[in-house]
């Protein structure tokens, strides 16, 4: 059974079809890149997978069942924005996660935070944007999930932090889990991808294994992308 399946998924906003008849299967144990231009529908698709949007048509199935409390226990989502309660401290946020997520490894999170020099008594509102993003990454990676969905984890982040993020993703890799990385900064992450899904104008343009694509096109995925979706 596949990990996550989208069947004829569509989403309309007012008069625009953000997603049209998307059919997708995410396998286990793979690092998958969701690549597309800004506005292609990546974030819409991801929000639908996380039950933050209601489909206009079609369904999302996680391990064969509709999205619900069980699927949310197994999906760890890192959105682009900061979603933490600003009045809470880092320590309180950790306890919040530990309270609701049964597979949250609080010790691991504390270790990672210590590495990042993040004090546990710091209030979220006092942290810089970069620190907040790192904190959110740590929180997501400290959960033992079956699917990690990271939306633009490298955007607006310095190169050292980018390396840190990629290392963390690789260190966290488990054979029964998958990672879905959505980004438009393809060159930075393509070397760790197993598979790629190209999305354009709300439809799936291509699904392929990363190395197969490189062999077939004789170039980097970044180059292929530029060629194919030239403005």
């Amino acid at each position: 059974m596949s990990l996550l399946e989208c069947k004829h998924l569509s989403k309309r906003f007012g008069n625009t079809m953000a997603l049209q008849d998307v059919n997708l299967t995410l396998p286990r144990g793979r690092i998958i890149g969701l690549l597309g231009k800004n506005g292609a529908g990546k974030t819409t698709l991801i929000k639908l997978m996380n039950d933050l949007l209601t489909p206009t048509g079609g369904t999302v199935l996680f391990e064969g069942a509709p999205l619900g409390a069980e699927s949310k226990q197994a999906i760890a989502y890192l959105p682009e924005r900061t979603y933490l309660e600003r009045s809470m401290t880092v320590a309180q946020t950790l306890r919040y996660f530990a309270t609701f997520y049964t597979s949250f490894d609080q010790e691991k999170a504390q270790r990672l935070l210590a590495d990042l020099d993040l004090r546990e008594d710091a209030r979220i509102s006092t942290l810089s944007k970069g620190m907040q993003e790192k904190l959110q990454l740590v929180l997501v990676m400290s959960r033992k999930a079956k699917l990690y969905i990271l939306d633009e984890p490298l955007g607006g982040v310095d190169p050292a932090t980018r390396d840190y993020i990629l290392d963390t993703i690789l260190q966290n890799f488990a054979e029964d889990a998958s990672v879905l990385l959505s980004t438009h900064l393809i060159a930075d992450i393509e070397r760790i991808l197993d598979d790629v899904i190209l999305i354009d104008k709300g439809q799936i343009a291509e699904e392929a294994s990363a190395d197969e694509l490189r062999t077939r096109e004789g170039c980097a995925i970044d180059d292929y992308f530029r060629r194919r979706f030239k403005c």
Partner: protein
Amino acid sequence: MLKKLMRYDLQWIIGKVLSYYSAATLLIALLARVFHALSSQAFFLHLLEKIFSGAFISCGIAILINALMRSLVCFRSTLYGDPSYLTHTLPIKRRTVFTAKALSGTVSLMFALAVSALGLAITVLTRADVWEKAKELLRQRGTVSTLLLICAAVVLQLVEMHFSAVFGLVLGHRREKGRIPFSILYSVLIYFAVSAVVTGLLFALSLLKPEVHALLTQPLSTQEMFKMEEMRFLLAVGTVLYLLADSGLFLAARHVFCKGVDVE
């Protein structure tokens, strides 16, 4: 899960703000009472009594409004704002999430009400002259039940306001992309519609009992109102109707909410 979620919401809604507000309200009530006791001694003490009494009334009302506003802000922010990214991805059923938010608001309102009531008790019931009158009233048959029914009516009215606002927020999000003016409009319309229906039903029921009908259509003094069985009947039926209305509002709002969200 439900209780855990509620604990966090209550911490946010009541938190330091309402706690300090409650302390201040009770302090003002105490001071009003103290100045009342001293008021015969000097004019300016009498003046202070009046000022603090007035201040207490403002605080008592303000704390209720504050509790209502904070709970609605919490509702909107944690379900439709940025923190909703966390709320909606928690491993909890959508129904439970809604119930937790709605109940947290209700508990906060009850807390604020309790503070106001306590303050009122401090300012008024500790006075010997008022207590005498109260004891006399309590000796009469049926006063206690009437008072209880009045309390229930007040509580249910507040709950009706709260749930109307919640329903308005849910509808506003689903139909009007969460724009505030529309949410407010929906809330107000729902509140008046529900109140009108309940009042209408009470009136209709009163046609069955002529004495009750008389109560509704003719002027009366406060003393007499307390004596009448018909008053209690009216209050009792009203309480039941409002209880049903509030439950209906809760279930309707939860039903619409569970159909799904579209978070920005």
